């Protein structure tokens, strides 16, 4: 919302400075977004009076003037033809910057005579192109600021333009008068009385208006009046200046009148060229659907069933509250004008405007809510202005429907206001504020003014009182704690787990990414998603059409982008939600890591090598350990098809309880996503890791033996597809009390063993508890290990 300072002063009698007004606006909730202050750069120009002017002894065209200024009489040399005794002028003293000539005035000598300043022309102050001579003012006191003089006598020249942001609850502030009312309530002046008397009609209005019965809730009231014999010309200068200042283009007087009241009073009007209205009848009705109209913007619109339209005897002529039609619009030839002031339902107007994609000043105001009570005044104000500038004879006013009743009251609870705001505001002050804003108080019941559709309860009264009192003055008061003393922990176990997983991943060398929760359908489909349930209805682009079913596709896309930038060795991870459906709660927390390329750049030590499955396995195990997963897990196969079928493992507690998956990403997936592989990944489900059962921090007692542990190595030849974990578990089962650990330390495939065979070597560590192991005890356990392993695997001890 834009307006000028002098426009504001049409409604507000105030002595406040521009800065005071700007501060108050922002503080009141009408946030100032910008000010164009054309006066500021002329701030130092003052008014002077030429006491005498004599010809320069050495120059025909120069005058030596003695000029009275606020600093006494100064000698100024001037070359303007009108420089003469007895005129009131504008003086730039030494040190003043003159914008039109881009010069700062100094003390100088002109043809041998000293000059202490300059008398300025309009062009030199960039007020106009006038440069035939220096300014001669018809009034003004010596020493007075020229800007102040302009503000009083020719305000349009220096009228600051103020732009404020309007929150959706304040349609009244979309009119200059509403803004003035807020400032008056704050104490920055008094609101001027502005409403005019009704204009007597000179003849019956020849155009009739009807509102169809089923349309009365969309357009409860319609006021109209015809004025005949008008002359539509360009608007008077003051009106053109105002509209231009706020960024509107003056069109013709009749149209400009409607724009003026739109901004002056938040009262959109429409003017029809009455001679083009067919059948002398206007009808407000609901669209049947399919009707069309070329709007004032010269675009054709087609209407949906139920939109509010205004038609004459033959055609649709206007989209109610949104835009008029081109055919019946006023032009320079218009001599008979029909003025419309109606009230259109905000919700319906919003839907219509949104559906037709029309953003007009009228729609913007009707959908927020104009003052229905002011509808008849709108007609009268417009009539007076038209009669004054365009002449003509007014008809009687015709009315269809009736003004909707907005009367409602809410209780003012002064104590509640203080308790909510936390500020001492006397009840009398509260009442005074509300009264100044147009509320009418009866006892402690406040009647809401018709221009405040947003006030819908007692809490709204509190807001009005608080914002006028100024929240800037509010003093902070400590918030009492719910618990005294040392703060208690505030994170849930899962929140702690999430943080721990995140920091462990980073400690393992992964860089954390935060990627968008939505990805393209193809990538989602590669990871089991991409179905309609997880689809956005209005994605911002086709790259972001589906909620991600997993974190890996986002990380793979990130890898592809980094590879394209020449970064090939990547360790990326993300912690965040993935979505298995489109209902609230159909999301689950994941931790995923991705390794691509090598463990590091090629190096002199030969340490760099391509990343492999056992890197991600180690990392997945480390993160699981950090978040408290049990050490004893199963490694199963058969995970989803985006994993390499032979190179992945599911870390499980039983076949259905999957804590995580690690492995190589399927080469086809990499190809589809333009990632140069191979790539290794892991995904963990932190919510699946069982929460510890015991409460309290006490650890189990440590039992350690002083007796020496013994290690024995075994090598078995087994079929190549026998898994190491089978051997380990079998060996561990040989003597659960004695065998502390079984560790695979070598794998050898093929060679002399023949195809389809491999050798696995285990170290079995035995920890005696009660007495030192004797050789025969060790041999007994060894025999048991061999028996268990060969039985479990069908393999043999390697000789």
């Amino acid at each position, binding site marked *: 919302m834009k307006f000028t300072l002098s426009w504001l002063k049409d409604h507000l009698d105030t002595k406040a400075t521009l800065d005071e007004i700007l501060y108050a606006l922002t503080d009141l909730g009408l946030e100032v977004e910008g000010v164009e202050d054309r006066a500021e750069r002329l701030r130092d120009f003052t008014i002077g009076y030429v006491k005498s002017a004599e010809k320069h002894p050495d120059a025909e065209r120069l005058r030596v003037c003695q000029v009275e200024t606020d600093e006494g009489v100064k000698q100024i040399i001037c070359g303007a033809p009108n420089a003469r005794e007895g005129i009131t002028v504008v003086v730039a003293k030494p040190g003043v910057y003159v914008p039109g000539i881009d010069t700062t005035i100094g003390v100088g000598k002109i043809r041998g005579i000293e000059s202490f300043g300059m008398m300025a022309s309009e062009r030199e102050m960039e007020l106009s192109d006038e440069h035939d001579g220096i300014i001669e003012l018809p009034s003004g006191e010596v020493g007075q600021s020229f800007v102040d003089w302009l503000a009083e006598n020719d305000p349009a020249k220096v009228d600051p333009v103020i732009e404020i942001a309007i929150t959706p609850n304040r349609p009244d502030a979309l009119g200059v008068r509403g803004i003035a009312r807020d400032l008056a309530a704050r104490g920055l002046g008094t609101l001027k009385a502005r409403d005019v008397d009704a204009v007597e009609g000179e003849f019956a209005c020849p155009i009739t208006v009807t509102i169809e019965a089923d349309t009365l809730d969309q357009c409860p009231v319609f006021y109209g009046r015809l004025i005949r014999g008008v002359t539509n010309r360009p608007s008077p200068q003051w009106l053109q200046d105002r509209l231009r200042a706020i960024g509107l283009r003056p069109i013709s007087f009749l149209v400009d009148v409607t724009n003026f009241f739109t901004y002056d009073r938040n009262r959109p009007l429409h003017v029809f060229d009455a001679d083009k209205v067919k059948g002398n009848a206007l009808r407000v009705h609901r669209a049947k659907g399919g009707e069309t109209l070329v709007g004032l913007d010269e675009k054709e619109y087609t209407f949906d069933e139920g939109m509010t339209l205004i038609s004459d005897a033959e055609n649709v002529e206007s989209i109610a509250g949104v835009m008029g039609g081109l055919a019946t619009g006023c032009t320079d030839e218009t001599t008979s004008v029909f003025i419309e002031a109606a009230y259109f339902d905000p919700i319906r107007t919003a839907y219509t405007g949104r559906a037709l994609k029309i953003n007009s000043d009228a729609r913007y105001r009707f959908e927020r809510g104009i003052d229905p009570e002011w509808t008849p005044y709108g007609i009268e104000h417009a009539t007076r202005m038209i009669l004054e500038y365009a002449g003509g004879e007014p008809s009687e006013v015709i009315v269809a429907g009736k003004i909707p009743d907005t009367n409602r009251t809410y209780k003012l609870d002064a104590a509640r206001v203080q308790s909510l705001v*936390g500020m001492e505001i006397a009840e009398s002050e509260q009442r005074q504020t509300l009264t100044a804003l147009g509320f009418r108080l009866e006892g402690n019941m406040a009647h809401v003014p018709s221009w405040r559709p947003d006030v819908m309860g007692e*809490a709204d009264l509190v*807001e009005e009182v*608080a914002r006028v009192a100024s929240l800037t003055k509010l003093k902070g008061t400590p918030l009492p704690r719910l618990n005294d003393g040392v703060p208690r922990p505030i994170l849930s176990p899962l929140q702690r787990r999430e943080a721990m997983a995140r920091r462990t991943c980073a400690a393992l060398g992964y860089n954390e990414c935060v990627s*968008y929760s939505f990805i393209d359908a193809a990538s989602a489909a590669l990871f089991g998603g991409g179905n309609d349930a997880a689809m956005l209805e209005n994605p*911002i682009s086709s790259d972001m059409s589906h909620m991600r079913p997993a974190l890996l596709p986002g990380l793979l896309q990130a890898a592809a*982008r980094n590879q394209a930038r020449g970064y090939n060795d990547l*360790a990326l991870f993300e*912690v965040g939600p993935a979505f298995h459906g489109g209902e609230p709660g159909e999301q689950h927390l994941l931790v995923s890591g991705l390794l691509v390329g090598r463990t590091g750049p090629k190096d*002199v030590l030969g340490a760099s090598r391509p990343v492999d499955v056992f890197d991600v396995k180690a990392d997945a195990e480390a993160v699981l350990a950090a978040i408290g997963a049990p050490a004893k897990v199963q490694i199963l196969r058969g995970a989803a098809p985006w994993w390499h079928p032979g190179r992945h493992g599911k870390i499980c507690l039983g076949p259905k309880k999957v804590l995580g998956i690690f492995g190589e990403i399927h080469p086809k997936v990499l190809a589809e996503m333009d990632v140069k592989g191979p790539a290794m990944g892991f995904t963990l489900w932190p919510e699946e890791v069982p929460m510890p059962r015991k409460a309290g921090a006490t650890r189990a007692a440590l039992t350690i033996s002083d007796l020496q542990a013994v290690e024995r190595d075994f090598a078995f030849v087994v079929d190549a597809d026998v898994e190491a974990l089978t051997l380990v578990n079998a060996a561990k089962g040989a003597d659960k009390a004695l065998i502390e650990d079984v560790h695979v330390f070598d794998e050898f495939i093929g060679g002399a063993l023949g195809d389809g065979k491999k050798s696995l070597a285990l170290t079995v560590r035995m920890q005696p508890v009660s007495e030192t192991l004797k050789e025969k005890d060790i041999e007994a356990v060894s025999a048991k290990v061999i028996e268990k392993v060969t039985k479990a695997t069908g393999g043999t001890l390697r000789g």
Partner: protein
Amino acid sequence: MDDLKQKYLSQIADAGDESALEAIRLAAVGKKGEVALKMRELGKMTPEERQVAGPALNALKNEINSALNAKKSALADAALDARLRDEWLDVTLPSRVRPRGTIHPISQVTEEVTAIFGEMGFSVAEGPRIDTDWYNFDALNIPGHHPARAEMDTFYMHRAEGDNRPPHVLRTHTSPVQIRTMEAEGAPLRIICPGGVYRADYDQTHTPMFHQVEGLAIDKDISMANLKWVLEEFFAAFFEIDGIKTRFRASHFPFTEPSAEVDIQCSWIDGQLRIGEGDDWLEVLGSGMVHPKVLAAGGIDPEAWQGFAFGMGIDRIAMLKYGIPDLRAFFDSDLRWLRHYGFASLDQPTLHGGLSR
């Protein structure tokens, strides 16, 4: 005997390696060495002679032995020195690569915010990213026709043919978590709700996903003055500037009443933003007293309870604090950016250890 001593000591001194030294040892003090031979001669001596020669020979033997040992360790030292000289390495060669992981600024700043509000007694509440339009709008006093709905650029979920429920939304703010937590826990309440939110907007300063933290405190007599104190304390702690100036401006949100936008003091010098100095103001936060209708929607009696709520952008305050210029880069996962703006894994922000890195 002095000749003998002289001879061997000088031979020892001249010995060049361990084998030469061994040869000298055998020749001098070995079983058949010269000193041993002299020892044998003792038996032929008179007791008086023996009394003189015996100790002298023993002393000679000891002296040669210790000279041998000294020389032996000197030779060993010299050999070690020589070896170590040969073992010179170019230690300016690059070290073995240890990968250095990083924490994303959003995670780091979320932890900073959590540490501060945790100290003030707020716990962390979470909620779904896909939510019903009731939780996202209606419960927050934003009815269907409210202009705020259109202004929020909401993402809607697809609805299957025949499913006539209103479409779910990607939450446009973290405020639905307020409602869910009020429903679940009732009053009194002190929570913050950090997390991702979504709006259909993409340009230099907007991304379709960003992060907010919401705060909510409900009690019998909480006022806007408490809200102001909490936020002043927060900004002082977060930006680590004591007495940082904030400005409360009246504003409007459907879910709070009265409402205030909060600005913090800043300056712009050569296009660079500095927080906590100067005469300019930067809007960072929306807040207010929870609207009675919102309390009622959360199942809390607005006659008995009142409280405040606030919401701010995590990405935004991260940008302000750490001087990160472009929001879009937060979600691009450019390795260079992650390394430059990321935080070390063990750099966990705490109030006792400090929040800034």
